[in-house]
């Protein structure tokens, strides 16, 4: 097989819809295809969780020396213009082809940080810890949510979530590619999406070997249950006194009744907050998914 086509639909596409496309189609990472084409029809609109996942996946495929083509049917007038403004093309591997062509100007550098409710994509450079990334992301929230009474709490919570998730990328992912952090405040939907994505080994890959020695009963859990426990009780490959970061993220997010979406190389869990936080019986689980490297976490925080 030479080329796999991922045909995106019209309308809004979030991570779940993007995952459905992958699930019901041919897996771009697997098989013998040498080329993957993502086709964006007129009227296609992407949400930030889908954008960041798409971005990571494109760069991964490019890293595997596959030809990647992003085909925008309405040129820069539609979703490509939007992606340009939010910095997508700044982060896209240079060899990836864009049809009808890469946007000529990097609009994101012109608009960055100026638009209320706009998404910001930040590159997580695995060679350099840039503290200002956290400031830019949390400042964007404080601007977008300036009218809210709980803006300080919201901003600090989002800062903490980004801090722990990005720190996790540096500490655990052993990623060969840059990761990405992004946020978007949806005024119409009254929600905030906070997402961090890396192209590393996936958090369970690094956790399981350590658990086998320290906590064999946990090591026996299936991927999906173990993933829930990572956010529920905090688990770390470095032992019992560590691992509180992701649990801390979940505790902050729970205050805002946030949904948590975690995608690993072949499983995905969507956690909905219950009375006692996140629990396995409030989880929507997907296994045997098409391969996507890394760990992709998205919190969707309800703002009203």
């Amino acid at each position: 097989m030479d080329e796999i086509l991922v045909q995106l639909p019209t309308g809004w596409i979030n991570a779940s819809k993007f995952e459905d496309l992958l699930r019901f189609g041919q897996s771009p990472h697997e098989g013998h295809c040498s080329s993957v084409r993502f086709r964006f029809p007129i009227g296609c609109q992407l949400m930030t969780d889908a954008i960041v996942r798409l971005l990571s996946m494109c760069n991964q495929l490019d890293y595997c020396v596959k030809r990647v083509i992003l085909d925008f049917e309405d040129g820069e007038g539609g979703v490509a213009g939007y992606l340009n403004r939010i910095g997508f093309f700044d982060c896209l591997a240079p060899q990836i082809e864009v049809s009808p062509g890469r946007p000529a100007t990097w609009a994101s550098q012109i608009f960055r940080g100026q638009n209320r409710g706009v998404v910001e994509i930040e590159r997580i450079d695995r060679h350099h810890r840039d503290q200002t990334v956290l400031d830019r992301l949390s400042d964007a929230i404080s601007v977008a949510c300036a009218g809210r009474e709980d803006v300080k709490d919201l901003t600090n919570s989002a800062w903490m979530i980004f801090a722990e998730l990005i720190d996790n990328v540096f500490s655990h992912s052993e990623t060969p590619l840059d990761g990405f952090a992004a946020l978007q405040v949806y005024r119409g939907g009254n929600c905030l999406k906070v997402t961090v994505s890396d192209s590393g080994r996936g958090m369970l890959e690094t956790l399981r070997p350590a658990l086998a020695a320290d906590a064999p009963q946990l090591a026996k859990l299936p991927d999906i249950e173990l993933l829930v426990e990572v956010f529920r009780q905090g688990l770390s490959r470095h032992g019992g006194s560590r691992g509180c970061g992701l649990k801390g993220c979940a505790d902050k997010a729970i205050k805002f009744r946030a949904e948590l979406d975690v995608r690993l190389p072949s499983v995905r869990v969507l956690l909905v907050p219950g009375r006692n936080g996140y629990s396995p019986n409030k989880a929507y689980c997907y296994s045997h998914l098409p391969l996507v490297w890394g760990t992709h976490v998205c919190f969707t925080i309800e703002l009203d």
Partner: protein
Amino acid sequence: MKRMSENSPLLLREFMTEDDGWGRPAGRETFAKILSFVESHPGVVIFRVSLKGVRRVDISFAAETIVEIARKYRTFKGFCFADLEDTDQQENWNAAADRAKQPLFKWHGELPAIIGPQPSQGTVDALQFALVRPEVRAAEFATVSGTSITNASTKFKQLWDQGFLLRTERNAESGGVEFVYRRIR
């Protein structure tokens, strides 16, 4: 070298490179500086930590800095917060302390609050007794609470082991040795 007495707080910000404490690597770097500072003040037993100028900390940073130094010196030296007011920061220090099973105190004048793990049901009364006094002996608590001295001693030893109190050995009036327990303030 900064001068230090038990009355002057340890300003965490002075050991940080940024006003936000982010991640374990930055935490470890800060820990090394705090450790060196603490070791250069061998006579100081209680360090009151001020968060003045610290804008935010994440849980990983909290775990690697004050929580870790308190854990390292548990039973020998005590660390407490002089001005932990920010709710968000308090949640993060609490999560880190809880995880490490290392209690820390924050003080509002005479009123203490425990950050991190709480004392067991069986030792709460002894801790409450100790927290409103500069120093206490097990025998004093035994008299007031009507419990045996052995039982009171066990409770205080447990609180000392778990990092809720400090203690020193003194010669008792009776001629033996007794332990005097001290709150971390």
